[in-house]
């Protein structure tokens, strides 16, 4: 296993290299560059742009160089821990992210944990009580969560949270705490706001998870080993948890690799709608403005997480099911 892991880590390097080329290409793909978007931004409110100055800026940041050269500068910097410079914020990328990272992790982790905490019991319940009223009811609720687009849910929740509880609209905290150091009042305000994004981001994911848990569990429930376990006199719940549930987790484990990057990237669109102080909206803006080092470094960071996540999930798979041979071909 150790050799396998080392081997996988070695393979990561070419993979990440390919990803970096792709990421670079994709953010270069839209015509124009940051400065062009910058000019347009100015024009949109009526300002005139000083073309001359902008040409100078362009030259300063190497935008008159060829793309491979720029790629080279960026990636060598990245490897050395220099993630580049955000034009939009006029700050080194590492400083831009700042606080947002922690808030993003907070929102994502709470959401993910809530999703699991809710989805698994419900999934198990609806698998074991298939076609009961509970199953139908929860399925129905969950599907509503899926069917209503997040942004509408976000607007509705925000609106009514404001009307009923007086929670201020959007954001992760009341406006006065923005940019303030942490305090009890701020923490309280964050908690007050947190539930809205958690509910919104969580609903679709929860319902999806419920359905998947249910489906996978239903497949395992009739296996012979369940009967064996029952014959031991185990509590049905324990039987469920130890045997069929574990075997039905395959799909879940295979996907935990993608959880890692989502913790950082967050649900971008919802975050935009709710105007959360998370990294998602920042990424989107950076992409739209072609603030390319910010966007590129961010994406590369996500890529590294993805690659690590996939490795973690593969290792977890091998633990989950000892029959799985990660290396061998189809026959032993």
């Amino acid at each position: 296993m150790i050799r396998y892991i080392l081997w996988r880590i070695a393979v990561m390097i070419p993979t990440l290299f390919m990803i970096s080329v792709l990421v670079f290409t994709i953010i270069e793909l839209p015509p124009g560059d940051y400065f062009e978007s910058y000019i347009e931004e100015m024009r949109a409110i009526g300002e005139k742009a000083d073309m001359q100055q902008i040409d100078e800026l362009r030259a300063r940041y190497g935008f008159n160089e060829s793309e491979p050269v720029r790629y080279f500068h960026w990636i060598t910097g990245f490897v050395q821990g220099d993630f580049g410079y955000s034009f939009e914020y006029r700050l080194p990328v590492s400083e831009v992210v700042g606080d947002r990272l922690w808030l993003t992790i907070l929102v994502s982790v709470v959401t993910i944990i809530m999703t699991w905490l809710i989805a698994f019991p419900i999934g198990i319940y609806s698998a074991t009580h298939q076609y009961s009223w509970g199953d139908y009811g929860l399925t129905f609720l969950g599907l509503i969560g899926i069917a209503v687009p997040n942004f509408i849910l976000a607007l509705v929740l925000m609106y009514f949270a404001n009307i009923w509880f007086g929670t201020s609209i959007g954001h992760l905290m009341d406006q006065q705490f923005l940019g303030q150091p942490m305090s009890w009042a701020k923490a309280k305000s964050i908690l007050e706001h947190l539930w809205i994004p958690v509910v919104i981001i969580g609903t679709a994911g929860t319902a999806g998870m419920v359905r998947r848990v249910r489906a996978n569990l239903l497949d395992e429930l009739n296996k012979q080993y369940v009967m064996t376990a029952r014959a031991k006199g185990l509590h049905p719940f324990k039987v469920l948890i130890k045997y069929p549930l574990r075997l039905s987790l395959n799909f879940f484990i295979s996907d935990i690799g993608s959880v890692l990057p989502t913790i950082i990237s967050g649900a971008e669109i919802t975050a935009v709608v709710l105007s959360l102080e998370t990294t998602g909206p920042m990424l989107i803006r950076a992409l739209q403005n072609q603030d390319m080092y910010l966007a590129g470094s961010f994406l590369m960071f996500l890529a590294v997480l993805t690659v690590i996540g996939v490795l973690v999930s593969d290792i977890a798979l091998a633990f989950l099911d000892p029959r799985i041979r990660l290396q061998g071909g189809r026959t032993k």
Partner: protein
Amino acid sequence: MAECADLLYVDKINVSFPMPGGRIEAVKSFSMRVRPGKVTALVGESGSGKSVLGRSIMGIESPVANVSGQVFFHDPEMAKTVDLLALPHDGRQIRHIRGSRIGMIFQEPMTSFSPVHTVGNQIEEVLTVHAVLSPKEKRARVEEMLGLVGFDNPSRVFDMYPFELSGGMRQRAMIAMALICKPALLIADEPTTALDVTIQAQILKLLMELQEKLGMAILLITHDLGVVASLADDVVVIYRGEVMESGPVEAIFQNPQHAYTKGLMAAVPHFEMDRGERLKPLREIKVDTAGLIERCSTKQAKGDVLLSVRNVSKSFQVKRSNGFFSKATAATLAVNDVSFDIMRGETLGLVGESGCGKTTLSKILMRGVTANHGAVTFNDGDGSIDVLNAQGQALQALRTKIQMVFQDPVSSLSPRMTVRGIVGEPLEIHGRGNRASRLDVVRRLIHSIGLPESAMGRYPHSFSGGQRQRIGIARALALGPDLVICDEPVSALDVSVQAQILNLMKDLKSELGLTYLFISHNLAVINYMADRVAVMYAGRIVEIAPCETIMRNPVHPYTKKLLAAVPMPNLDHPLDFDLIGQPSKAAKKLWARQFHDDGTPDNLTHVDLGGGHLVLARRNVDARELRA
């Protein structure tokens, strides 16, 4: 109503399963009793409802089944009679009884374990539920039990995963699980089908001991009338869910009354049979063997070498449950330098101790497992094929010529295919015939293995153990292969159906020139089927000889012990458990010196005793010395 003397009283139980277009009445108004401390044997045809009954008593039959009736269990410890079926479903009371007061050995040991938990973990769990013990104590108890059921190295087995064990080993693990809490009643559903006779004897001895020591009653479901004769106090004969005959074992064996019982008795193969004699199944199914399977005529004369195996070895690395950083454990040498030939048109019987590598060997021949080294050549007259390295066309051709009946009928049938699909699949793969003709072949195959046509639309899980085994046989025969490797093909069949199947196989062999590699623990069956017999022990072939020679003049001590351990369906010849029931490790110590390798495998070689009789012994020993 229930008499207090009965440990278990089953009163008019009915079990039925809904099916498209009707329902299956698996058990019909069935009544029986089990006396405390006694062994009640339940015998009957394959598919007659024995396993369903066992499961229904435990209350673990699948939820789709309709169960009605009453099952009274009088627990001597609680001195109270309860109706098991009336207890709340999966409630506390019934859970307390399960595993602790009533233990169950499932018929399909191969699939009854969860594949992702270690054997030890799964056995230990019973203790966790029913006893208050420290983890250390639990492990010790489990290891002790594993040792009792015949494992050489219990602590190693404890940490192994079920799929790393051989069929027989899993069955023993299952037995250990059922016995670990020392229940008052043991429902043993075919507990020894996957065990060779020596281990079987060991297990039976263990059961007897427990029965005596703890007053444990056993509801023994078995096909092996020999085991019944050696063990049972009472016998219940079941046929299609109904009691045909019941009574004390003496009464049944010496004076069978019912036509069905008589038929069963008559169908048992025995050693005194003539080589040409046919078994007499209860119902003879006329099968037109020629039309049954499509097959090209034999191109090669009988007696040529069809398959030659040279120096094949295979070792396994065991996965460790305790983290991946631990050191790799020593590899198991499952097959060790095995060489033999199979002639065209013959049946080579392969017998050996449980876990000695028979299944592994047969899978190597099928390219299901890659051998570490060695060579296998297949030659049906169209030129020889290097089995272990064949690719593409050659491999595909090989796949039509060699077929296998798996030891585990459950897991080798796709759970999501209907029988029709399963049996017809080889035909479909190799493009034999059209839809209609394939359907026709399938129908005839199903008929010839004694299943009704309605079976075609059902899924494997809804069959009894024996029925599934027959489906596997039908599938293997569908293509009309040259060589069929049968891994315990009839272990789950009652004697009558077994007779029917064996006859069928024999007919096919004589009429179409099929060749069989026949792996079995049942020496009577081997005697009936095989032309030559190879005996395996711990990965090596220890003796190989024509069938009569082995049966009459065994040389190797293991072979001798094997023959001595065969239970006879005859009350006059009960097994001497003290003699044969000793663990194989202990028995090995008693072997004569010339059979020991003294730690150096190279010391041993196959000594030719003439007449095709080879035996594994010291290089330089004299043949006469061996016979002594």
